């Protein structure tokens, strides 16, 4: 006879596992990314170019991935990058970073270390002072490291 406590624990354990097994998870995350991109650009057309996203195409470990975004811009009062946003396609939520720059930056470049959960796209969007939006997208392959602590592999 299973005790009530054990029954509840089993239920609690099953729910997150079922969430992971959601067959629509990829579609949901893609939709979340599209919505985030729309939120960033506020409906303005997103054009590829001017942005250089530097991220390893094959990451050593998805927990810590060096990401550098640089944008061609004179960074003057009249013509500069206002913001840089980095997003991913497969993470549980799409944003990595939103950086706010301006002419005082001198150069439009920001480097961080991000988490990339699974193989997929990483996108960098730059908002310019003239209201235009530019982007770069890189497809990144993420593998699991060998010999982990929780013995998944």
């Amino acid at each position, binding site marked *: 006879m299973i005790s009530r406590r054990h029954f509840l*624990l089993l239920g*609690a*354990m*099953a*729910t*997150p596992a079922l969430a992971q097994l959601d067959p629509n998870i990829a579609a949901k995350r893609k939709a979340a990314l599209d919505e985030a991109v729309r939120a960033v650009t506020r409906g303005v057309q997103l054009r590829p170019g001017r942005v250089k996203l530097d991220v390893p195409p094959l990451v050593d470990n998805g*927990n*810590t*991935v060096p990401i550098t975004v640089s944008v061609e811009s004179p960074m003057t009062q009249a013509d500069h990058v206002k913001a840089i946003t980095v997003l*991913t396609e497969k*993470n*549980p*939520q799409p*944003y*990595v*970073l*939103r*950086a*706010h*720059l*301006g*002419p*005082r*930056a*001198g*150069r439009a*470049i*920001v*480097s*961080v*270390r*991000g*988490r*990339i959960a699974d193989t997929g796209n990483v996108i960098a969007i730059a908002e310019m002072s003239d209201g235009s939006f530019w982007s770069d997208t890189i497809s990144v392959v993420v593998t699991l490291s060998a010999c982990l602590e929780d013995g998944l592999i």
Partner: protein
Amino acid sequence: MAAVSVTVPKTAKRGEVIEIKTLAAHVMENGFRTSQTGERIARDIITQFVCTYNGVEVFRAELYPAMAANPLIAFTTVATESGTLAFTWIGDNGYSVSHSATISVA
């Protein structure tokens, strides 16, 4: 003890673009992990980083759970005048750390 590390040149020429590298010791618990018993581990991340130069904001960033632990943020700023660069990190659960560095600009 909340530790941070900032690397910024001590001196610069006026108008020179200098590189600033910052690191903060923080677990950046993303809020999506579950414990052995299936409970969601609560999010605990740094959410904001600001850099001011003699009181004027020159760089600001919003951080999300997809930032790695011990987050690195490196950026640039123009060395306009001598003075103080102040850095502030703010996050969940009342996390708030400040650090400053002086720069001499000739």
